[in-house]
C-alpha cells in the first residue's frame, strides 16, 4: 500500500509538472490495481479521480488546460518544424497561450499531415511504429509513434480498464479491426499483456470466421468498428445464433457512427448489456471520447484540449449547434508526431448550457458523433442533415441493412438517397416514405443493384482480409 502510494505520487507529480511519465511505474500500478481488486473486489472510493482526474471544477479545468497548452506549444515550437513555422507565422508566444487566444493559430488539417509528414516529427524523439489512418475518407495519413507513447498509452488504458472493470485478467479480448491499424492493435495487445488478459487479433476476416472464434473459443470482449459489428450481426442472425452462443460481456465500437438500432440488435443477439461507443482517431490519440448512458460523448480532458468549432466559420460553436471537434493532445501524452489544434472534421452537436446529470457529468459532454463535416447535407440555410440521421434512418428499416450503404445528394433543397435494392426489398413505397418522414427526412429514393453497395459508402468493414479458410476465388480462378 505504501509503495503504491509512492507510485501514484510519482505519476501525479509527472502529470502536474508536465514531465514524461515513467511507463514502468505505470505498469506496476496496473499490477497494484489488479492486486487491489483481488483483495477487495473493487477499487477504493477515489478511483474516479485516478482515472478521470480531479477536474470537475471549471476554474481548475481552465487552469489545467492553459498549462497543458503552454507546455505543449513551447515544446512544439522548439522541436516540431511544422509548428515552429506556424507559431512564428501567427506571431504568438507559445509560453503565453491560453484557450481564449487559440484562434490566432490556424487549425491543422489532414492535408497538412499528408503533404508534410516529416515536418510534424519532433526532433528529440526517435520513431518506433508507424500507423496509418484507414483511408475510408480519402488518402491515408501516416503517424509515427514513439516507443514511450506506445508504452504510456497501453499502461494508461490498462489502468483505466481495470479500475472501471472493463478489462480483467480472466477476459479474452477478440480484436476485429483492420490489421493495418497497427497502433490500435498494438495497444489492445499491450493492454491485455499488462492486465494478464488473453488477446486474439483476427482483423477484418469473413464474419463467419469471427463468429466461430467468438463462440468456440469463448471471447468475453470484442473490439471492432460499427460496420463490422453490422456484418457480424447480420451473419449471426442468418445462422440463427443468440445470446446463449456467446460469452461476451461487452463490445467496444469505435471509428464510425453506431446507430441505436444496430446497438440494440447487437445487445439482443450477443447477450451483452454494455456496448461502449468510443471515439478515437489516429491523428489525435490519446485524446479519447466515450459515450455515457444518456448518449453524450465525453472527451477525456486530462490528455488534451478539445474545442468545438463551427464547421464553416471556425469560431466556437454555440450551444445546440453543430461543431467540428478540434483536438490538441498535451505533452507528455503525445511526443513523436504531435498535432496542435487538429481539425478532425468529426461533427458533434453541442449540448444546451445545462448541468449534466449523467454518470460522467464531471467531464464536458456533447451529443454523439454526427459524421464527417464533409458529409453534412445543407437543404437550406438552417436545415442540415447529418450522416448520423441518414444512418439511423436506414439502419432502422425492417430489412436490417447493416451496415447502411447509401449515397446522399441535394438538389434544390431536396434530399436524394441512393441505396441498394435490398435495403428496401419487401417494403412498398408508401411504407418507405413514411419511415423516413417519421424521422424528419423527405427523401427521393434511387435503388441500385446490391453489387454496387460498397461503392456507395465505403466503411471499415470493407477492408476485408484474406484467409485460407475463406479465400476469394478471383485470383487465378
Amino acid at each position, binding site marked *: *500500500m505504501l509503495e503504491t502510494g509512492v507510485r*501514484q505520487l510519482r505519476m501525479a507529480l509527472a502529470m502536474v509538472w508536465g514531465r514524461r511519465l515513467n511507463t514502468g511505474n505505470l505498469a506496476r500500478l496496473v499490477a497494484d490495481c489488479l*492486486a487491489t481488486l*483481488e*483483495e477487495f*473486489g473493487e477499487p477504493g*472510493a*477515489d478511483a474516479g479521480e485516478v482515472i478521470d482526474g480531479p477536474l470537475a471544477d471549471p476554474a481548475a479545468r481552465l487552469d489545467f488546460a492553459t498549462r497543458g497548452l503552454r507546455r505543449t506549444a513551447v515544446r512544439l515550437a522548439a522541436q516540431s518544424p511544422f509548428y515552429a513555422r506556424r507559431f512564428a507565422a501567427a506571431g504568438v508566444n507559445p509560453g503565453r497561450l491560453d484557450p481564449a487566444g487559440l484562434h490566432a493559430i490556424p487549425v491543422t488539417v489532414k492535408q497538412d499531415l499528408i503533404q508534410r509528414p516529416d515536418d510534424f516529427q519532433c526532433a528529440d524523439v526517435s520513431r518506433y511504429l508507424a500507423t496509418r489512418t484507414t483511408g475510408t475518407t480519402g488518402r491515408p495519413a501516416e503517424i509515427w509513434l514513439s516507443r514511450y507513447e506506445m508504452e504510456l498509452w497501453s499502461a494508461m488504458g490498462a489502468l483505466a480498464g481495470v479500475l472501471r472493470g472493463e478489462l480483467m485478467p480472466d477476459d479474452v479480448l477478440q480484436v476485429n479491426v483492420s490489421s493495418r491499424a497497427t497502433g490500435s492493435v498494438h495497444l489492445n495487445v499491450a493492454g491485455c499483456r499488462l492486465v494478464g488478459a488473453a488477446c486474439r487479433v483476427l482483423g477484418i476476416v469473413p464474419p463467419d470466421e469471427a463468429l466461430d472464434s467468438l463462440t468456440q473459443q469463448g471471447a468475453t470482449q470484442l473490439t471492432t468498428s460499427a460496420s463490422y459489428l453490422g456484418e457480424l450481426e447480420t451473419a449471426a442472425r442468418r445462422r440463427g445464433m443468440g445470446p446463449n452462443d456467446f460469452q461476451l460481456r461487452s463490445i467496444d465500437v469505435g471509428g464510425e457512427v453506431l446507430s441505436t438500432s444496430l446497438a440494440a440488435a447487437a445487445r439482443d443477439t450477443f447477450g451483452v448489456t454494455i456496448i461502449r461507443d468510443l471515439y478515437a482517431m489516429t491523428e489525435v490519440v490519446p485524446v479519447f471520447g466515450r459515450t455515457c448512458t444518456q448518449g453524450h460523448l465525453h472527451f477525456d480532458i486530462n490528455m488534451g484540449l478539445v474545442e468545438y468549432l463551427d464547421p464553416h466559420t471556425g469560431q466556437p460553436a454555440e450551444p445546440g449547434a453543430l461543431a467540428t471537434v478540434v483536438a490538441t493532445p498535451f505533452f507528455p501524452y503525445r511526443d513523436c508526431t504531435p498535432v496542435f489544434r487538429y481539425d478532425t472534421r468529426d461533427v458533434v452537436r453541442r449540448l444546451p448550457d445545462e448541468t449534466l446529470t449523467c454518470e460522467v457529468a464531471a467531464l464536458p459532454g456533447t451529443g454523439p458523433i454526427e459524421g464527417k463535416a464533409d458529409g453534412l447535407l445543407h437543404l437550406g440555410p438552417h436545415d442540415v442533415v447529418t450522416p448520423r440521421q441518414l444512418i439511423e434512418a436506414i439502419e432502422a428499416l425492417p430489412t436490417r441493412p447493416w451496415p447502411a450503404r447509401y449515397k446522399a445528394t441535394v438538389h434544390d433543397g431536396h434530399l436524394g438517397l441512393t441505396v441498394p435494392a435490398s435495403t428496401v426489398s419487401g417494403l412498398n413505397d408508401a411504407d418507405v416514405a413514411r419511415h423516413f418522414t417519421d424521422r424528419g427526412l423527405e427523401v427521393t429514393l434511387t435503388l441500385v443493384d446490391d453489387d454496387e453497395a460498397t461503392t456507395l459508402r465505403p466503411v471499415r468493414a470493407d477492408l476485408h482480409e484474406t484467409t485460407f479458410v475463406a479465400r476469394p476465388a478471383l485470383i487465378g480462378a
Partner: protein
Amino acid sequence: MNNNLSSSPTFLALFQLVVTTIGATMACLGALYYLRRVRLERPAIGRFNGRDVVFLFTFLVVLPGLYLFLPQWALTTVLAITFTAALSIGFRPILPPTALWVGIGALIGADLWMGQRMINDVANWHYVWAENSLVVLLAAISVANLYVQGGMQLRHMAWFAAGLAIYDSVFTIIWPVSNLLIRAFVNHPLFPAMGMRIHFDEAIVGLGDLLVYAGYTIAAVKAYGRPGLRTALSLVLIFGAAMPTLSGLVINFVDSRLDVVIPAQTYFGPAALLGYLWLRHHYGRERTMKEYLASLNTEHPNPPTTPTIPEEPKLESEPVVA
C-alpha cells in the same frame, strides 16, 4: 494496605498478568467488533503487502531511537499528533466531523492535562491511567483495523510479530533501549501503554504489543474465521499475556539475582508464526477481504449493503451492521 514501597515478585507478576490479560483481551475483542461493523476508507489503489511490512518494521526499529533524542516537549507533540491521527482515521467513519474532533480534542486534551496535573497524588493515578488507557486502546483498535482492512494478511502479521520478537529481545535484554524508552515516557502525558496502578505498584502493556495482538487476531479472523479467532486468542492469552509475566517469575524464582524481564513479543512472535503456519496447513490459503466480507453477508443475509464504488464516487466509509 501495603505500606512497603516494594511488593512481592509474585504479586507484581500476577498484577502484570491481570493487566496484560485485560488490555490484550479488550484490544483484540474491540478490534474484532470494529472489523465486523465498520468499513474504513481505503485508497483507490493499493493493498498492504510484504514490502509494506518491511517498511513498517524498519520505521518501528528507527522510531524509538529518535524518541530518545527528542526533548520532552517534542516527544509529547509527536505523541499527540500520532494519537490524533490514529483516532481520526479510526473514528471518522462512525462519527460526524464535529463530534469526531470534539471527542479527539477532549481525549487528548484530558490526557495532556491529567498527565501533568494529576500525577502528584497516588490516588489520582487511577484516573490518569484509565484515561490514558482508553486513548491507547482506541488507537490500537483503529490502527490494527487500518492495516488489516487495508489488506494486511495474517502471514504479514505473523512475520511482523516474529521480527518484533527478535527486535524486542535484542533491545530489551542486550541493549536496553526499551527500558530507556519507558523512562522517557513515564510520568508524562500520552504514555503509549495501557496500565493500572495499585498503591505504588504499576503494571503496563505497551501500545506496540496491543497493536500486534489486535492485528493478529483480526487478521486471523479475516483469514480463517472462527478457527482463526480461537487460535489467535489462545496464542495472545498464553504467549502474549501469561508466558512473559509468569516466566519472569519462574526464572527469578530459580535465581533471584537475575531479575529478568522478558519482553512479551519474545514469546508471542514465534508462537504467532507457528500459529499462522498451522492454520495455513489445516485450512489452506487465507481469505481475501472480499471473501471475508462475503462471509459476513452469509452470516447476516440482509445487512445494509455498501454501494459499489463506481456508482457512488463520493462514498464515505460507513458502519456495516454485522
